[in-house]
C-alpha cells in the first residue's frame, strides 16, 4: 500500500516547499524568555507580559501625559463629542497568523495598554498553544470590563472583526460590542492624506512621532512565520521580537492618539503646525458639518502663501461650497471667479448655476458655460470623464441658449 503522500505525488501534486522539521531546541520556556508570568482563569492558563511606561516618558516627540481633553478627537471621529476619561480607554493591537482574514486566522498575541496610576500600562496576552485560545479570550473579556472605549489602528476592518470571529468560534460572548471604538487610521488618513505618501502606523511613527525602532524590531510580514516556527520547534526566542514589535505598536498608538488630540486642541494659528495640516484640520471639521470652524481655518489658509496653485483651487472650492450652503453667495462668487481664472472647470459650472438660478442672468450664465467648454477641451483628464462632462455641459448650454432665444 503506497502512502497517501506518495499517491498524491504520483497524481501530479507538487508539494509546497518541503518544511524542514525544526529540531526541538532545549531552550528556555516562553515565560522565562519573555520575562512573563502565567495567569489562570476559569478556562485555563495564559501567558502575560506586563510593562509600564511612566508619565513623562518621551515616545519620539510625544510625551506620555495622564490627562487630556478628548472632546475634539471624539467629535471629529463622529463619536459624540464627549471628554472620555483617558484611563477608561484601552489601546489595542493584535498579532495574527495572517492578513487574509476568515475563520482560519488566529490572533496569537493580543496587546492592550491603558493609562493607569504609574503611567502607561501595557499588557500582552500570548497564546502558547492554539488549544488554549478560550482562556486568552477570557482574559481579554475580563480586561474589557473596566473599559469604556477601544482605540486601534485599522481595527475597524481588521482587529475587531477578527477578535469577534474568535469569540464566536469559541462560543463565547463578544465583550466589546457595547464599547466605543475609535480607529485612528481614519482620522490619520484625513489629516495627512495630502502631506504624506503613506499613512501606515509605521510611517506615521517615523514622520509624525519621529521615533526610530531598535534592532529588536521585526517587519510585520515575518510575524506569522515566526509564530508557526515557534509552535513547531518550541523555540521561544523566536517570539521575543514579535512581543517588542507589538509593544511598540501600542505605545505608538497611544502616542499618536495624544499627538492628534493635542493638534486638535491647540490654537492652530499660533502653534507651529505644518500649514498643510491646518488645511486638513479644516477639512475634518467641514466633514462633520462644523462650518464656522472650517471657515475660520480656510480663511486663515487663504492668507498664507505656502500653498501651491492646485491647493488654492481646492481651498477656494471648499470654501465656496460652504458659503453657498450658508447662502453667502457673494463671497462664494468671488472665490469661484478666482478659480475660474486659474482654469478650474468646477468653478465655471458653479458660476453658471449661480447666474442662471440665483442672479437670473442667463447671458452671464451662458458665458461661464462657454468658458467651461474651453477649459474641458484643453484639459488633460481621461476621455471618459471628458465625455461625461461635455454631455453635462451641452445640456446646460442648450437650455440656456433656448431661454435666450425665447426671450429675444
Amino acid at each position, binding site marked *: 500500500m503506497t502512502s*497517501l503522500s506518495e499517491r498524491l505525488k504520483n497524481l*501530479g501534486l507538487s508539494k*509546497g516547499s518541503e*518544511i524542514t522539521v525544526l529540531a526541538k531546541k532545549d531552550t528556555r520556556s516562553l515565560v522565562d524568555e519573555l520575562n512573563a508570568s502565567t495567569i489562570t482563569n476559569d478556562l485555563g492558563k495564559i501567558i502575560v507580559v506586563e510593562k509600564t511606561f511612566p508619565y513623562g516618558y518621551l515616545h519620539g516627540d510625544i510625551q506620555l501625559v495622564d490627562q487630556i481633553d478628548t472632546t475634539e478627537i471624539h467629535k471629529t471621529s463622529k463619536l459624540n463629542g464627549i471628554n472620555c476619561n483617558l484611563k477608561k480607554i484601552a489601546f489595542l493591537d493584535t498579532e495574527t497568523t495572517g492578513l487574509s482574514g476568515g475563520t*482560519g486566522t*488566529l490572533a496569537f498575541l493580543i496587546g492592550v495598554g491603558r493609562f493607569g496610576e504609574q503611567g502607561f500600562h501595557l499588557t500582552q496576552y500570548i497564546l502558547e*498553544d492554539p488549544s488554549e485560545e478560550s482562556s486568552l479570550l477570557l482574559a481579554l473579556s475580563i480586561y474589557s470590563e473596566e473599559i469604556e472605549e477601544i482605540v486601534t489602528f485599522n481595527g475597524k476592518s481588521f482587529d475587531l472583526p477578527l477578535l469577534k470571529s474568535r469569540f464566536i468560534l469559541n462560543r463565547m460572548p463578544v465583550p466589546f460590542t457595547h464599547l466605543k471604538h475609535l480607529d485612528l487610521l481614519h482620522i490619520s488618513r484625513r489629516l495627512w492624506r495630502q502631506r504624506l505618501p503613506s499613512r501606515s502606523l509605521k510611517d506615521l511613527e517615523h514622520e509624525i512621532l519621529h521615533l526610530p525602532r531598535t534592532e529588536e524590531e521585526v517587519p510585520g510580514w515575518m510575524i506569522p512565520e515566526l509564530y*508557526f516556527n515557534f509552535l513547531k520547534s518550541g523555540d521561544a526566542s523566536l517570539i521575543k521580537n514579535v512581543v517588542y514589535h507589538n509593544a511598540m505598536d501600542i505605545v505608538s498608538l497611544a502616542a499618536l492618539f495624544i499627538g492628534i488630540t493635542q493638534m486638535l486642541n491647540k490654537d492652530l494659528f499660533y502653534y507651529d503646525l505644518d500649514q498643510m495640516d491646518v488645511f486638513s484640520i479644516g477639512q475634518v471639521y467641514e466633514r462633520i458639518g462644523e462650518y464656522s470652524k472650517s471657515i475660520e481655518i480656510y480663511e486663515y489658509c487663504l492668507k498664507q502663501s505656502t500653498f501651491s496653485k492646485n491647493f488654492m483651487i481646492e481651498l477656494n472650492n471648499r470654501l465656496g461650497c460652504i458659503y453657498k450652503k450658508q447662502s453667502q453667495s457673494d463671497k462664494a462668487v468671488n472665490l469661484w471667479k478666482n478659480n475660474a481664472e486659474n482654469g478650474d472647470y468646477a468653478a465655471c459650472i458653479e458660476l453658471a448655476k449661480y447666474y442662471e438660478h440665483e442672479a437670473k442672468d442667463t447671458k452671464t450664465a451662458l458665458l461661464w458655460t462657454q468658458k467651461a467648454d474651453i477649459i474641458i477641451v484643453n484639459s488633460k483628464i481621461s476621455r471618459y470623464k471628458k465625455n461625461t462632462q461635455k454631455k453635462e455641459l451641452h445640456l446646460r448650454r442648450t437650455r440656456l441658449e433656448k431661454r435666450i432665444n425665447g426671450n429675444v
Partner: protein
Amino acid sequence: MTQFDEFLLRIKKYPDFFENVAFWQTQIAQQAQPFPFPSWLHNRLVDTFNSMGINSLYSHQFEAINCVKGGMNTVISTGTASGKSICYQIPIIDQLIKDQKSSAILLFPTKALTYDQLKSFSTILSTGKIFENQKSIAAVYDGDTPSQQRNAIRNNSKIILTNPDMLNVAILPHHTIWSEFFQNLKYIVIDEIHLYRGVFGSNIANLIRRLKRVAVFYGSSPRFIMTSATIANPKELASNLIEEETISIEADGSPKGEKNFVIYNPPVIDKDLGIRESLLTSTSKISELFLISNIQTLIFCRTRRFVELLVREIQALNPRSTKQIRGYRSGYLKKDRREIEEGLKNGSISLAIATNALELGIDIGGVDAVLLAGYPGSIASLHQRAGRSGRSLNSSVAILIASMNPLDQFFARNPKYLMERPLEQALIDANNPLILLSHIKSAAFELPFEESANFGLLNWTHLEEYLEYLCEEGVLQKKKTRYYWLSEHYPSGDFSLRSTISVRILLKYEDDGVIETIGDVDYNSALWMTHPGAIYLQDGLAFYVKTLDLEKGIAILTKSQADYLTEPIISVDIDAISQLKVKTFQNFILQYGEIEVTSKVTGFKKIQIITREILSAENLELPENRLQTTGFWIELTEKCVGLMRSKSIWLSDPNDYGRKWKSIRDSVRNRDNFTCQSCGRGEADVSFHVHHKIPFKMLFSIEEANEFGNLVTLCPDCHRRVELNFKIRSGLSGLKYLLTNLAPLLVLCDSTDLGSYVDPNAKFSNLKPVVLIYDSIPAGIGLSSSLYERIYELLKKCRELLNQCDCKVGCPSCVGPTSEVGIGGKKETSFLLSLLLEQDIK
C-alpha cells in the same frame, strides 16, 4: 387550425425537408390534474398565489412540498418548465412566515439564473406583502454584489441566492459573520444538480460536507431541496451529493401543449466515404423555412464559434431581416443579452442562435420552435433545450439536426432512446484524493478538525491520513486533540470547483507590438494545442504559436496566414499499476484498475487545409505528462485472436493492384534480395509476398500505394502475421472509436473526460491485443468504473450502430474516418464485436 399547425402541415409536404426526416413524433397535449394547496400551508401564502392567478398545484409540486414538510431531503426531476421552483419557494416562504428568523441558502450554477430566481422570489414576496421589510428578505450574494451592500445582506436577508464558487471562497471561510444566518438555517436548495457531475460534482459534494460541518457547529440541521433535469439516476446523484437519504420525485404532473419532436438527418452527399451535408448548411436551410413563415425559433449550437458562423450564414441569406436574427452566447455584453432576452419575449426577434447559455432557466417566455444543430452531448441537455419550445400550452416543434458524429447517427437510427427515460448516469467521486485534499484544507481553515471526527462519509481512518499529510506539509499542526490551520494561506482561494488542474497557460496575442490576452488553456492541453509552431484555432480565427513558456505560463500567438493546420504527434505509454477488478470470458478478459498514462508530444505534422496532404513533420522537445488514473481494458484471448486469424481470408477483399503489379512486385523482391525482411528467410520453392506498408485501400492512387518505399518483401507466414496484426489493430481502433463516442449514452461526460488507447501487443496486459478507456482526470472520477460494470450494454449499443451504418468500409459516423493507418476497419470491428458479444456476458 392555427397558423402554426398549418406550417407543420406545409413542411411535411415539402420534399426537400421531409425526405430527410428520420423521425417525427407528436406528443399530444396533456392536461394537468389540479391539487389543492395543502392545509398546513399558511393562509397568507395561499392568498398570495391566488392573487398571482395560481389556484392549485401540479401533482409533483404537491408531492414535493409535502415531502419537504415531512422533513425529507427531496430531489425533483421533472421536465423543463414544469414549475420546479415552486417546490422550494413554498417551503422556504412558509417556514419564514411561521418563524421570521429562519433562513435558507440557494445555490445556482450560473449568475444569470440567480438573478432570474431573485426576480421570482421578489414577485411572490411583493405580491403577497407578506413581510414588512420584504425588500431585503431575499438577496443575491455573489461576486457582483457591491461590498457596501454585503454587510446589510448578511444581517437582514433570510433567503440568500448564490453560487457554489461564492460559497466556497467567500461564505464558508467567513462563517462567523453569518453566525445568525447559520444558526437558523432551515433549507439548502441546490438547483440543476445534473450539472454537478464529474469534477464539478465531486467538488460540490465536498462543499456540502463543509457546509454541513459549519451548520452543525451552529446547531442547525437544514434539509435539502434539489432539482434536476431528467437523468437516469437523480436519486443516486442527489444522495451522493448530500450524503443523506433522499426522496426522488420524477412523475411530471404539469400540463403540456402538443409537442412535435423531429430528427432530421442531413442527406448523404458521398456514399462511399459516408459524408453528409454539413450541419451548417442543413441548419441554415431549415431555419429559412421557419423565418419565411414567421415562426419564432431558437437554434442551439454546440460551440460559440458555430453560433457566429451560423449567424453570419443566415444573415447573408436573409439580408432584409438581419435585425430579427441575433446570436446569444457567453462573451456578449450583459446589456445586449438582456436586450435579446427581451426581444424574444416581445417577439421583435424571430430567430435567436445560442449556445447552452440559454439552456438553463433564463426567462425568455418560450418560442414556437427549437432547432438543435447537433446532439448537445446528453439527453438531459437535449430535453432541456427542446423544452424551450412551447408558449404556454400552444403546440410546438423541436428538431434535432444530426451531425456526422456516431452519437448523432445512433439517435437518428434509434430515436426511441431519446424518448425513453435516459440511461445516462451522473457520476461523482467525492473521495478523489486531489479534490478531497483541497476541501479538507478549506474545512480545517473553517473549523479545526477534532480527533476521530469524520468528513461527510469519509471516516476517521482515511481523514487522519490526510490530516497527517497536511501536518507534514506544515499547514496544519496538531495540538492536544485538534488539528489547527496554521498557515497564512487562504486555501479556498487556491483551487477551482470546476476543474482539477489549476495551472493555466495564458494565451497572449501579439499584434504590432501590442499584446492582449485572448484566453487560456490548462497546462496539459497547452502541450498539444499550443506547442511552438502550432496553429491554434479560436472563434474561427487561426493563430500561429510563436513561443510557449511553461514556467511563466504564457504562450505568445501571432496572426496566422498559413494554408495549413497542425496536428500533434503524441506518443503514449501505459502502465498498469494495479488490477482492481477482472472478469474472464472466452474471447476476452475485462479488467479495471489503476493505470499510469505517460504521454509526450514528440512533434507535429503540418496538414494542408484543403487537400489534407501532409506537408511536413517537425520534432518538438516538450516535457512528458504523467496521468495516474483509473481505466478499464478489454484484452483479447488467444482463442479470440485465433478466431480472427481463421476468418482473416474472408475479411480481405481482393484488391486490384494495377496492371504493372507483376513487374513492380518482382523488382521489390529483387531489391530485397528475395529475403523475408521480417524473419530473414530466403525464398525456396514459392515466391515470397510483397506487402503494402500503408494499406492499399487507404491511399488515393495505385501509384502512391505502389511506391517503392511503401513495399516490402515478406514470407507468407510473416505476411499473414503482419496483416493480422493490422486487422486486429483496425478492429481495436474501430472499437475504441465506438466505445469512446457512445460512452456518453451511459455516463454523463464530455468527450475530453475520457481517454483511450489501443495496442496489439500491450506490455501492461500480457502482450495481448488491448483496447483501453480511461478517465482523463487524475485518480479518476468513476466514469470507467461505471462503464466496466455496464460493458455489455455499451458493446451492444456499439454493434447496433455499426450494423445500421450504411457506409462500406467505415466512416466518421461509425468506426472513424478512413484516413489513418489502423483506423476504419468496419468489417474487422464488426467481426470483433460479434466475438465479444458471442456469449452472454451479462
